[in-house]
């Protein structure tokens, strides 16, 4: 059986991913945190996975500052509404 305090970067990469989906047993969580303190690259890896999650959920919020050309035209809105009416 693997000594949890001896997790290698390869093991950590799996455990961190797993921890984002299913959670880890307490002793493994502790061992992962310990390793993340010891290895800056493993810590970066976790930061990357968190950034992937953040980016996945991101939606634009800077609408107030954008040009009219970046918005949906009234003509197109009417067309889409018509398509929705036809569909229903």
């Amino acid at each position, binding site marked *: 059986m693997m000594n949890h305090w001896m997790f290698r970067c390869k093991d950590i990469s799996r455990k961190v991913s797993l921890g984002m989906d299913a959670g880890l047993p307490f002793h493994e969580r502790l061992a992962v945190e310990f390793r993340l303190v010891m290895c800056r*690259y493993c810590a970066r890896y976790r930061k990357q996975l968190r950034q992937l999650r953040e980016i996945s959920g991101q939606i634009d919020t800077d609408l107030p500052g954008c040009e009219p050309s970046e918005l949906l035209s009234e003509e197109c809105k009417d067309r889409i509404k018509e*398509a929705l009416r036809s569909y229903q």
Partner: protein
Amino acid sequence: MKDGPQIDPESWVDRYGDALFHFALARVKDREIAEDLVQETFLAAVKAKDRFKGKSTEKTWLFGILKHKVIDHYRKKRSVIYEQDLSKGTEDLDAFFNAKGAWSTMPENWRLNPGKSQEVREFIDHFYQCLADLPKKTAEVFAFREIDGLSTKEICKRLNITASNCRVILYRARMLLRKCLELAGLGPSGAAE
């Protein structure tokens, strides 16, 4: 619909049309294609409205649908589409590590400063392109989990795969996405960790 929230598809166009279009245009850089993607999003939402349980906001839900459309759009432009056996293990990911299990290529500190919107936009562009480069099912599992926020249990049920299989696929998706984003030259930022 009996239990879900009240839905008024035509009002979506006025409430969320601009935001969805702005997002789509930023990704595909073509007005006509962006308009088509927004229209397809609303139509797909109407078809799937019984699935909307009100767990997320209407806006987040519609954005989720649009993001799938954007990934499909990028994928259609690829000359090669990778299909993958979902039961595949992680042996091919061993290349990320040396014989002692240490990183063979060190993870980088990505340029993703929330204060710099141009950096974030560039990152998001690469992110969706990299997602489209993944084997289709792998990208699908990742999108269900991270974009739609489904639990692994819900993903397993939807795709008829085991929980351990689902976790392996998510691990693979994350590792490959990281690699793709790093190849796109998004690091290092030089920012403090």
